[in-house]
């Protein structure tokens, strides 16, 4: 009896699962195949609108306020424009992102926008997307795969951010000094790019005493900062921290070490509210912006792709550097 029941349940769930995947595929298929045919036969080619679009966004996780703002930007924009957003959260794991992408490919979405958690290892799944003729836009961080594997990369130039941070550090320490670096996730485009750019522009009289990963995660960054503060007590002139969340953890460690705001110069990246608050309080001297509100731009690009328009292979977001002098004025305008 029980066995029969269990069998029925399994059967029912299988059927349901089958319907679940079949339904979108069925509705999707005509839309996808009609397009070229319609364009060929009917004189006025079908112009797609946002309502026709199914966009897949396998978000990499929710490791910082920046990421939360990025997620919110996509969800809100999709709702406003009527885009069907297939959203998933990979919890900072590449294998989750890849399986989410495979699901999207099977569903036959129109465009995939991928914020890669690390740089390497995307070739296979990008090839699968290409075989399925689904264009991929790389969002935010970069990938090491060949440029022909995806249509465009939109996001911040991480090396440029690192260079900007290096210039700020040069300005803050004109007479040279010792700095420490707390970097992001090892192997991520953001961490390697920022580290590289920072080293490129840093004056010769400034030495990087030590560098350790905080994994973009405040809880991991705090013990690192604590250990650094004891090891290099009295020698530290500056900190370069790869995001604002970790900077908050470092500030917490500085407070415990009895350091007064401004005694150790801090250059951080992101420009979150927390970052602005730290500038107002005098802890952070320069915050390099890294704009997370990419939803509107990405969806515009996706629509252009669907309508067969050309888009640039490399799109940069508008970013600046923020300073403490106008932080208090700007704080109310910050969205993340």
């Amino acid at each position, binding site marked *: 009896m029980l066995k029969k029941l269990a069998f029925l349940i399994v059967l029912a769930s299988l059927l349901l699962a089958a319907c679940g995947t079949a339904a979108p595929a069925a509705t999707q298929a005509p839309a996808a195949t009609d397009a070229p045919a319609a364009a060929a036969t009917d004189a006025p080619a079908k112009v797609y609108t946002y309502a026709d679009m199914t966009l897949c966004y396998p978000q990499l*996780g929710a490791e910082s*306020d920046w990421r939360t703002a990025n997620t919110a930007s996509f969800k809100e924009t999709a709702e406003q424009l009527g885009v069907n957003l297939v959203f998933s959260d990979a919890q*900072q794991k590449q294998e989750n992102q890849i399986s989410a992408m495979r699901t999207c490919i099977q569903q036959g979405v129109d465009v995939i926008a991928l914020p890669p958690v690390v740089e390497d290892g995307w070739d296979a799944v990008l090839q699968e997307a290409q075989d399925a003729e689904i264009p991929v836009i790389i969002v935010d961080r970069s990938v090491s795969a060949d440029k022909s594997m995806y249509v465009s990369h939109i996001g911040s130039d991480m090396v440029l951010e690192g260079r900007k941070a290096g210039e700020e550090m040069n300005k803050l320490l004109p007479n040279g000094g010792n700095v420490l670096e707390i*970097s992001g996730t090892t192997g991520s485009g953001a961490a390697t790019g920022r580290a590289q750019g920072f080293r490129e522009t840093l004056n010769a009289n400034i030495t990087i005493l030590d560098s350790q990963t905080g994994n973009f995660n405040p809880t991991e960054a705090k*013990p690192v900062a604590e*250990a650094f503060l*004891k090891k290099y007590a009295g020698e530290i002139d500056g900190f370069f921290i790869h995001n604002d969340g970790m900077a908050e953890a470092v500030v917490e460690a500085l407070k415990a*070490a009895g350091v007064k705001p401004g005694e150790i110069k801090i250059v951080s990246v992101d420009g979150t*509210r927390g970052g602005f608050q730290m500038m107002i309080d005098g802890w952070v001297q320069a915050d390099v912006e890294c704009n997370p509100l990419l939803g509107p731009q990405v969806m515009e690009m996706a629509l252009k792709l669907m309508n067969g328009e050309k888009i640039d292979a490399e799109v940069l977001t508008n970013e600046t550097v923020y300073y403490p002098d106008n932080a208090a004025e700007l704080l*109310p305008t910050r969205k993340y």
Partner: protein
Amino acid sequence: MKNNTPLFKRVRENRLFWPLVALSLIFIFNAIFSPGFFKLGILDGHLYGNLIDVFNNSAPLMLVALGMTLVIATGGVDLSVGAVIAISAAMGAVLINPVFGNEEITNAVAADPTLTNTPLWLVVVVTLVAGTLCGLWNGLLVSRAKISPMVATLILMVAGRGIAQLIERGQIMTVYYKPYHWFGNGFILGLPVSIYIVAIVYAIAWVLVRKTSIGLFIESVGLNAKSSYYSGISEKNVKLFAYTFCGFCGAVAGLILGSYIHAIDANNIGLNYELDAIFAVVIGGTLMSGGRFSLLASMVGALIIWTFTITMYIFGVPANALLAGRAVLVLVVILLYSDYARRILNRIFERKGLQHDTAN
């Protein structure tokens, strides 16, 4: 009988012996290569130094290790403590957060450190109750539904972070309410608050397991559940108690961990704590198959893990080698605790002991 065993052998067979040897080895290593490690100063009226960091950072792990010791002693394992930490910390964050629902936190809220939705005592109580309930759930699955501990706690391990995300509505909640920061960053009489919290929980656990018969019951269930049952020990209730207490410990750890950085990230808070806690218990000499246990030795195990981690930071071990470093620690400990290593060590020391005896 007891007096006949050589003193050194008795010391060596004490559960605390090997963990303390390991800890002092790391300390000696630090003393030689980084003398600054032991420097303690007084700053703003509290002690300041690497040792304080080790204690403050390892406090949550020590708590989790306490609970895990009891669970492992009953012959089980609790894989869900990391998730329990996330759930309890998320509960605290949601209760403090003065903004309801998906409303964005306004800058006025961020600037006012006294704003909270719920009084602090209630936040603490709810945090602790949430974790304890998670533990109770695990306990019921294991003791009443007779699901094997690994599978039963796996359910909450997988689902727990999802639950925590639902509680926080997928956001990383930053707590601007100052009094909440005290648990992880405050000081009493120059020592971090977290140390006192660990001491209190340890005292509760010690009284429970050593001054009542619960400790004996746990050991007897771990050694042989069936014969305990026939001796009239309620195996079910003993297990239920162990898992519930483990949930409670996870909740206290969640309170401290959430307070450290005061931004509660359901995905990352207490990540891999279950594995570190199991490791701490193993270092403490409690067998994974259950039976005799030592709470203090497990706490020393937690201290070893954190001393080692902070030592690696001090020595500037590159980021990509940190995990490999940990692997070496695990390997060395497991080898030291193997029967083979024990036998060799026993042989070496016994021979010396004999010579010593004949000389007398």
